[in-house]
Every structure is written in C-alpha cells, then in structure tokens.
C-alpha cells in the first residue's frame, strides 16, 4: 500500500514534478536507431516525460531532439522538410538545426539577426547499441553516456524492441520485479517459447512453483533472488537485477540470450516498454532474431506501421478463452509481453495503490518503492545524484546459478552479477 501522495510522487513524471526531475538525471532510451535510418530522413514525433518532441537526423548524420512545435505559430515540425542540415517548418519556412537553434527566418532580413533570438528547447540524442538515448535534464549535469552491456556488445550480439504500453510506467515496471507471478501467468510459455525452452533451469521452475525470495540492495538498485531446491541439498537461484529508475534484467535460461526491460514514461498514462535480448559472448542466431522479430520471448508483434502491440485493449488482447480453459495460456492472452501488459493495463491508467493488499512475497516491489522514495528525497532535498546514474551501476548482469545452501547469493554469485566483456553469463 502507498498513500495517495506517495503514489502521486512516484507516478507523475511531467516537467516540474519531483519524479520527472529525477528521471531527467538519467540517459533514457528515446528511439530505435532504425526510426531515423538515414541522413535527411523524415522526422519522428516523440513524447517523453510528458513533453512533445520531434527527432530528426540531419544531412551530416547528427541527431536532434527538440520541441515539436515551431516557435512562430506553433505548427508541428513533423510536417517539416529535413534538408540541408536543418528541419524547415512547412508553414513559413523557419529552419532549425539539431540543437534547436533557429538558423533561418525567411520573412525577416538576414541582417536583422532575428533568427538568433529564436531557439527551441532541445536535448542531446546519441546512438549507442542501436538505440538513441537522450538526457532531458540540465546539460551541465549530464552524466557520461550509458554503459548497459546490451548496448556495448557488438551489434550482431544484441536486439532491442519497444512497444507502447497504455498505463503508467510504475505499474509496468513493478511487473518486471514481481518474480512470483512467473510461475502462474507465464507457466505455459517456459517449455514452448523458442527463446526460453530447453533450459535445465526450466525444470527447477516447473517443479517448484513456490520459490523463496531474497531481496538485497545493490549499488544501483536491487538484487531479487528467487530460490528453489536443487540436487544434493543445493539451491537454484534466479537473480534479477533492478537498476534505478526503471531498468531490469531477468535471469537467463540455459544458452539463451539474456533479456530485460526499460520502462520509460511517455506521459502519466502511458509508457514505452523497451525490451532487449543480447548474448555477451556470441552473435544472436538467425533463428533467434527471427523469433524476436516475430514477437516471441519478451517481444511482441505490432499493428503494422506502429509500435502498438497487435494484441491490445482495442481488440480485448485477442483473448482466447479456449486456450485458457485448455491450459495453453493461463490468462487466455498469448505471449509473455502481452500477458503482462494486458493485466497491467487492466489496473487503469494509474493504479490506486491505496487499495492494494501486498503480501510478504511483494517485498521486491516494496523495496523498489522504498529506494525510489529515498533517492527522490535525497535528490530533491540536497541534490544527491540518484543510484543508476553512475555508469558503474549499469555494468550488471542477472544470473541463474546453483549454490551451496549457506552461501548468500550476493557472495556466491558476486563475480557473475557484474558485466565482464567476453565472459559468458552464469546460466542454468
């Protein structure tokens, strides 16, 4: 349970809000690189943290992200012409460079210098690992670019997708650290999804639906360990990483790729669910890439031409009651991502946490809220840089590992919870 004022504090991320200011401390994913595939390509509308923006790639390959609307009459620059190192408004020809500076006002004499008085709010946009990242806070406070392992491995080893999720970022993110739902909602997928099946660890999952959880604070957020019995009195651990404010990495399975999410607020009632798969030491296979593009694993199929999932609330998530009755899916919704999203969206745009009844196994969620509120207070009161901003906090890995019964998983798995180039992940 959260009090209403705490719920508001964590869920509202628009300009001027406390959580919005803290989100603006981080580099956050804004677009896939493929959305701006070539120089002078069409601009793309972007909404992040309740701000309407336009992204474009100029004639020299530089990326820009700025206020969507022309400073002249408020026209959307989505209609603009991307030409000769600038985005030109289709209405009266005002032109902006990638930093948002107005470089041309055709109706005014060049010598008047009028254009120099015009500038749109803009944010940096940098490419790392097939994703375009932005920092929407004060430029002087921008940390070094992100160092998540999935964007630092060679491109052939990584795949990222994004999908629209029609609810507040926090309830989506909390689903990512709610480990106890996996044995219920996703129970039909571990043995059938091509990106999960075949791992020895799946048998531990399926033979023990009541894992025991341990939550331990990490430098950037939390380690959430789920413990099941293994052979010889040992424990099988699945260790999820949560790094503030909204990054998760799920424990791998067998030789499959490692995967996880970012949840980034679009506005207070919708967010981008970013999903990545990568392997630290090998290229993704054609079969894996095909499966990811086909919406398997944690990815989805789309309404053509959009990032909206094909199964969405406008078609009742294509619910299949016969599959639910037959046990092929637990909720009747197909696919891991939409099984999660459909339930999280059913809570409403922003869930009322004053009415929830959490239980002991929800301590991962409780601790994440506790850490967010604690960081928010330190950030707001004294300007303390929140956890997760430091690139060292981003060099993490999840792990699946078998350990002796008396070993704290943070000790037994210490080395494998850190991203180490060219070292295989700990996986069972």
């Amino acid at each position, binding site marked *: *349970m*959260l009090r209403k004022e705490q719920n508001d504090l964590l869920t509202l991320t628009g300009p001027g809000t406390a959580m919005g200011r803290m989100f603006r401390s981080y580099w956050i994913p804004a677009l896939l690189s493929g959305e701006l595939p070539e120089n002078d390509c069409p601009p793309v509308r972007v909404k992040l943290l309740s701000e309407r923006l336009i992204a474009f790639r100029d004639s020299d390959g530089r990326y820009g992200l700025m206020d969507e609307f022309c400073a002249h009459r408020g026209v959307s620059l989505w209609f603009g012409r991307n030409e000769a190192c600038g985005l030109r408004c289709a209405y009266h020809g005002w032109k902006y460079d990638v930093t948002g500076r107005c470089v041309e006002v055709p109706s005014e004499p060049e010598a008047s210098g009028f254009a120099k008085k015009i500038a749109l709010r803009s944010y940096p946009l940098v490419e790392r690992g097939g994703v375009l990242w932005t920092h929407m806070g004060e430029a002087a406070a921008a940390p070094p670019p992100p160092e998540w392992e999935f964007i630092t491995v060679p491109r052939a080893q990584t795949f990222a997708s994004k999908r629209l999720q*029609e*609810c507040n970022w926090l309830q989506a993110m909390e689903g990512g650290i709610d480990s106890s739902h996996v044995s219920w909602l996703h129970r039909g997928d571990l043995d059938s999804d091509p990106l999960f099946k075949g791992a020895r660890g799946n048998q531990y999952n399926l033979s023990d639906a009541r894992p*025991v*959880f*341990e*939550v*331990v*604070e990490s430098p950037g957020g939390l380690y959430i360990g789920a413990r099941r019995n293994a052979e010889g009195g040992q424990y099988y651990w699945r260790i999820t990483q949560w790094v503030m404010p909204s990054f998760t990495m799920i424990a791998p399975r067998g030789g499959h790729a490692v995967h996880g999410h970012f949840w980034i607020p679009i506005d207070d*009632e919708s967010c981008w669910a970013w999903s990545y798969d990568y392997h630290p030491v090998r290229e993704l296979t054609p079969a894996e890439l095909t499966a990811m593009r086909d919406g398997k694993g944690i990815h989805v199929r789309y309404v053509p031409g959009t990032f909206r999932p094909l199964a969405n*609330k*406008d*078609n*009742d*998530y294509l619910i299949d009651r016969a599959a639910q009755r037959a046990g092929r899916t637990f909720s009747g919704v197909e696919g891991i991502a939409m099984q999660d999203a*459909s339930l999280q*969206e*059913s809570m*409403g*745009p*922003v869930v*009322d946490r004053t*009415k929830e*009844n*959490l*239980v*002991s*196994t*929800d*301590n991962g969620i*409780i*601790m994440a*809220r*506790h850490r967010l*509120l*604690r960081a928010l207070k330190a950030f707001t009161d004294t300007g303390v840089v929140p956890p997760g901003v430091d690139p060292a906090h981003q060099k993490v890995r999840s792990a699946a590992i078998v350990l002796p*019964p*008396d*070993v*704290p998983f*943070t*000790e037994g798995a210490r080395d494998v919870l850190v991203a180490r180039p060219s070292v295989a992940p700990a996986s069972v």
Partner: protein
Amino acid sequence: MQTESARMTSAAEARFRVQAPNSTPRAMLVIALDAAGRRVVERLAGGGWRHATFLTAAAPDALRDLEGATRSVRDEIAAADLVVFVAGPGGHAHAVSAIGLACSDRRVTTTALIVGATTADPPEVSRTLAQLRPWSLMVVVAEHDDYIGDMMTALRA
C-alpha cells in the same frame, strides 16, 4: 465501437470502482531475534502501529514483550497472520528455529529482515542467513533500518 477492455481501462471508468474496503486487518508479529534486532524493534514500537505487536525472543521457546513480560510462542503465533523476524549479522538468531517451527505448524507466513548487513563481514551475514533461511518465506537485506517501517506500512500493519 470501443471494446470492453478499451472502455474499462479508461481514467473515466476508474471513478466507478467499488470504494468499500477490500480487506480486514492482518495481525503482524515483529520479533527481535538478537540484540541488533531488539534495537530496531524497540525503536519501531513507538510508531503507533495499529495491527503490529513487538516482541523479543527470550528462552528457546519463549517470547517477551518490550516491558519484559513473558509470552507464549504458541499463543502469539496462533493470533498472528504474519511474523517478521529481525536480526543482525553474526549468527545470534538461534531462537528462529523454535518460533519458525511454530509458524510452520500453524501455516503462518514468515519474513526475515537482516539489519546492519552492509557494514558487516559477509561470513557474519552468512551465519545469520543460514539460521533464517529454513524458516522464512522471504528474506530482505536492507541498507537502512527504516525499510522495516516502510514494509510494515505497505503491508498495512
């Protein structure tokens, strides 16, 4: 025409959610297993909790309230919905086995919190973990003691 899912997930529809209470209070028993746990429990006890009782482990199968009066493990567990163990590193949480056994017999959910772990040697934490794990459905290792209060609030203590 909108689907039912589209209509029902709108902000407008949220106004029609049933406002009646959807739960009755749960009784939480917070038990300090060692000296470190006792310090935290004594501080927490002054927080004006409505549904929490604070005790310390005494003899192997006895509990004491914060005034020093002896309480029966079996009676206290029988009245609890959730038992929270609080202990520090060092392996002084021996009492957990007798209390944990009573919880297990009564099917009472248990959560364990290890306080002061970030400044302790890992082997010290390991000793306490080894004592708590067999009897805890959930174990939390928190950097700050104030987490316990937040957790109790979240669980409606």
